[in-house]
């Protein structure tokens, strides 16, 4: 179950605000400044996702990915195996909206994905690997970096599902 699950209209111009925010923080405080903000976002704002990941359960993260990428109109798919959850994004709605606004993505724009995923996996049995495959496309992997204990494995399997 998602902690945050908005409905109603979307204000996609917030992707433009995000572009300006990461450019502002990244250009003045470096990637370490951005890392601090995204660590707080991943581990405090999205506390329930993070707590589950620490317990070996990726179910809320997968639900978050699926719900919001669908809501934003992304072209994406999610594939789940025993050891890895992979989201392939063929058309990122955030990058597409920046282009609609006539904006150029900041060099830090995709750090919202890279650093968020990394912070989600800190201190958990998982590791995050995000590969940018082009403008507005990427492959995000959350994979087991160490074996789960029995209880963690039970929790994770309860929550996992295939999605396309």
């Amino acid at each position, binding site marked *: 179950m998602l*902690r*945050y699950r*908005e409905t*109603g*209209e*979307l*204000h*996609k*111009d*917030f*992707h*433009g*605000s*995000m572009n*300006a*925010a990461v450019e*502002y*923080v990244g250009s003045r*405080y470096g990637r370490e*400044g951005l890392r*601090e*903000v995204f660590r*707080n*976002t991943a581990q*405090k*704002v*999205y*506390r*329930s996702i993070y707590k589950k990941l620490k317990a070996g359960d990726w179910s809320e993260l997968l639900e978050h990915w699926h719900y*919001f*990428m669908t*809501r*934003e109109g992304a072209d994406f798919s999610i594939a789940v195996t025993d050891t890895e959850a992979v989201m392939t994004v063929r058309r*990122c*709605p*955030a990058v597409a*909206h920046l282009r609609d*606004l006539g904006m150029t993505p900041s060099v830090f724009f995709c750090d*919202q*994905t890279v650093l*968020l995923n990394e912070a989600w996996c800190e201190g958990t049995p998982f590791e995050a690997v995000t590969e940018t495959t082009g403008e507005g496309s990427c492959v995000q992997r959350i994979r087991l970096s160490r074996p789960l204990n029995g209880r963690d494995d039970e929790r994770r399997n309860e929550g996992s599902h295939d999605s396309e």
Partner: protein
Amino acid sequence: MIPSDQFVRFYNEVFKFLDAQGGGALEDYYRAVSEQQERHCLALFKAEGLAGMKAYWDRIAVEENCDMTCTLHADRLEIVMRRCPSLGKAMDNDAGAFERYCDHCPGWILPLLAKAGCRCDYDIIDRTLPQCRLTICPNDPQRASRIRVSGL
């Protein structure tokens, strides 16, 4: 990707981070946000004045799911926000709301309105309530924009 629905919770973390840097870093950021917003609003505000401002905030009310009324009078635009989803989300947030979260709105709006030839009486009312009131008028050399927290 941070969903657009949840940008404001990230924004809230940016405010905390910049406030912790000190030296006016947060206020500098408000000015940068204001300059960024110029691309969305300034031409409209300059060309159509108060009516253009009403058009902008009427669109925002729909897209951001606000409970908000914009009333255009001959000499002023009055905006009454009864349910601000931005502060509402910052408060409905496991990380907690930045205590001066509301200040970012007048922080970007007032400089932009000044460039459009207007002043604003911005009443935050109470920083813990997702409500506020704005009265926007053409510039008057006798009266400056002001920000207050009336509590009423």
